[in-house]
């Protein structure tokens, strides 16, 4: 393995075949297994970057998520593809989404923690739905009376959202900002009542763009 005796173009083709046919994202360690030759991470990354470039602007794109690399169709084709698969994952209710958000940003949390923040009982159906989706799981128990279960998000959650790590979640609005956004939020709620699905107000808080880390990012388990 002194000089690269292997054909880089062939390596790229094998990688492409593997990534196109794999049901799961593939890590660098997986991809190495494809070859007799020992390929360094750098070489692999370079080829993957090249491959991603080859697919740029086409109907599918190569993405890097928490569990590795995978191809996905570009979102703009979803509206067509939905006609073939009428049953796609539902949009979750706000109750589910709020529970998910609390687990995502505050993990690991108990059901009690979630209830404290939401101010209502968390139905076990919500927890079950998120567990069934493979997005959360139990990572331990808090050592207090009753030993409540601690929930955290899974790698699949990150994969499904196309994220590599929790640090890529949209930044939280900080509390000071919330105090100042009275008017804006009032507007938001008015639109909500008007049953407006778009809810554009939220978007002006640019996600992930803010460099100052004013939030606590739980380390990925």
């Amino acid at each position: 393995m002194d000089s690269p005796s292997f054909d880089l173009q062939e390596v790229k083709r094998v990688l492409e075949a593997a990534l196109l046919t794999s049901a799961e994202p593939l890590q660098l360690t997986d991809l190495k297994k494809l070859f007799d030759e020992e390929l360094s991470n750098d070489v692999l990354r370079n080829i993957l970057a090249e491959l991603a470039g080859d697919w740029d602007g086409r109907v599918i794109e190569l993405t890097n998520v928490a569990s590795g690399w995978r191809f996905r169709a570009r979102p703009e084709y979803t509206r067509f593809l939905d006609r073939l698969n009428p049953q796609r994952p539902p949009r979750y209710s706000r109750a589910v989404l709020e529970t998910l958000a609390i687990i995502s940003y505050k993990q690991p949390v108990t059901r009690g923690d979630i209830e404290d923040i939401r101010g209502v009982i968390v139905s076990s159906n919500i927890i079950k739905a998120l567990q069934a989706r493979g997005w959360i799981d139990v990572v331990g128990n808090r050592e207090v009376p009753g030993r409540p279960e601690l929930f955290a998000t899974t790698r699949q959650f990150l994969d499904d959202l196309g994220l590599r790590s929790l640090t890529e979640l949209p930044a939280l609005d900080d509390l000071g900002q919330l105090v100042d956004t009275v008017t804006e939020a009032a507007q938001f709620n008015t639109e909500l009542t008007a049953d407006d699905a778009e809810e554009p107000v939220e978007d002006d808080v640019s996600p992930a763009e803010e460099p100052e880390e004013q939030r606590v990012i739980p380390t990925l388990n």
Partner: protein
Amino acid sequence: MIEAVETPSTAPLATYRGEPLLELPQDLYIPPDALEILLDMFEGPLDLLLYLIRKHNLDVLDIPMARLTAQYLEYVEIMRQKSLELAGDYLVMAAVLIEIKSRMLLPRPAASPHDELDPRAELVRRLLAYEQMKRAAHKLDQMPQAGRDFQLVQVWIDKAVAQAFPAVAPEDLRQAWVWLLRRANVNQHHRVTRDQLSVREHMSAILRRLQDVKLIEFTRLFSPADGVPKLVVTFLAVLELARETLIEITQQEPYSPIYVKSAHGLTVV
């Protein structure tokens, strides 16, 4: 929160009924049908309070407790009429609000006006913490999700080429024997010894030959080059096959060639 629990849960209702509804501002009024739809949207008392605060442009840091409490109780009363299940969480909050409101009415000690903790502080903290998560939930929902907003690529590959068979190691067979032996119904006459392998292997080999050629001259079963042990084993195999009537050994007359036939061939012919 803790003080709130101490407040009898019937207290807020009694208080509420003691207060005239006319105090409510006009713009709070929502037609009953619309309200029903609206109520479904509230995720709990904090959500409802946030709605009221935002709707009326109240200052979160200086909430007019009397006004907010009155409005809140009005909604709770309607909810109570619609759905009793909802009442629990909402009633606790009602108690909290009333408790805060009454503490605000108490004259503040002049000695330390600024050190005194605002009775509303905890409520404000909770409202903001909830609103933060509510917004985060909305942002999460906006993110493209696999299956919902984009599809994953899945190209077919023929994997049937090398169908995986179960792997068996010689040790597995020995283990299988141990299982057999441990079973009560193992009979003594099924003893297995090392030698029989060799003899039985040759028995099988001889039978195989006899499948193709029905008749073999006895001596051709042996090859002197194989050495004595092998010759002995082959001989034992022939004898064992004969004993088990799997082969027939024939000789027309003394000193003439001995022939070995499979018993199968014998019966067929």
